[in-house]
């Protein structure tokens, strides 16, 4: 009885061993495939966010300079919204996909940007597609 039990164990062990051997190799192969595939997707998503945030940032900084240096009538309302937008952008971890409030904050930044544009009475066209800025698969 003990003998057949040993035999059975040996078979199960061999089964596991062969499976494990294949698994190990497959795992390594799968890991490098996953890194490559994930990186491609990630780069595109990151670029979308980076492009949009960079745009708001460049726009806000340039306007801040223009308002401070080239307007005689200082408009505190415009400046306040502008400063608030800059603050939001600087706090925003645009390169971190694991940031849990990324979408929430991004929407707030978009809203603030729209508010600024209407205050400035301008309608910039960045040609940004706001779709598909997802975080994971």
């Amino acid at each position, binding site marked *: 009885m003990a003998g057949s039990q040993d035999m059975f164990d040996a078979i199960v062990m061999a089964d596991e061993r062969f*499976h494990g051997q294949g698994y190990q190799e497959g795992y390594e192969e799968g890991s490098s495939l*996953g890194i490559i595939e994930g990186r491609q997707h*990630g780069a595109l998503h990151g670029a979308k966010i980076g492009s949009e945030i960079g745009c708001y940032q460049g726009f806000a900084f340039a306007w801040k300079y223009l308002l401070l240096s080239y307007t005689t009538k200082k408009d505190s309302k415009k400046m306040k919204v502008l400063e608030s937008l800059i603050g939001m952008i600087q706090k925003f971890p645009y390169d971190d996909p694991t940031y849990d409030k990324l979408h929430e904050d991004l929407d707030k930044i978009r809203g603030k940007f729209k508010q600024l544009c209407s205050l400035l009475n301008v309608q910039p066209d960045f040609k940004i597609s706001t779709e598909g800025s997802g975080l994971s698969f």
Partner: protein
Amino acid sequence: MSWVQAAALVGCPGDEGDVFDETADESLLVQREWRNHMHRRVKEGYRDGVDAGKAVALQQGFNQGYKEGAEVIINYGQLRGTLSALLSWCHLHDNGSALIGKINNLLDAVGQCEEYVLKHLKSITPQPHVVDLLDSIQDMDLCHVVPVEKKIDEAKDETLCENNVEFNKNCSKIPSGMDCSYLEYCRTQQHAYSESPSLTWILEQTASLVKQLGISVDVLQHLKQL
């Protein structure tokens, strides 16, 4: 892929195709069945491993790529945003339409640059690892003509090429390393000529345009890191 080899070694030549050999020992059949079963187990394990490895690595790769993509593109975005601000400023203050046209052209140029970089990001292709290639070639049983030393040389060459473009010159003297180094070289040249200069060119143009608008170039100070 060493299990492919292992499996091939287990199989004795000549014992294929005689499934209906009535004189065959029953134990031989059992043996073969066992072997097939184990072969299948290795394959199953491999598949499970690929799935598991991929599942773990996908998110890791995504996060890595996300950071890279965001960091590369943000500068272009900043430049685009700045140009848009200047454009809207011009519209509000009714500056000459010639300058407005110029800004629009520069905006298009930034867009093209960005598209180029995006295309570049999309085509991040797996760098073939020499070790993997050799492994596959060995598995295919095609390489017994190639002396081991030469293989190691090639491996060395290619590693050097990947690590440092400077080594290309040395590499290309060795015929075996030539293809790799030449391609690497072309890619680097292409990279150097068609990407950064156009961005600096756009920046220069932007600076001169700002002066024409009668605005201090300080309006571009946030773009310093470009």
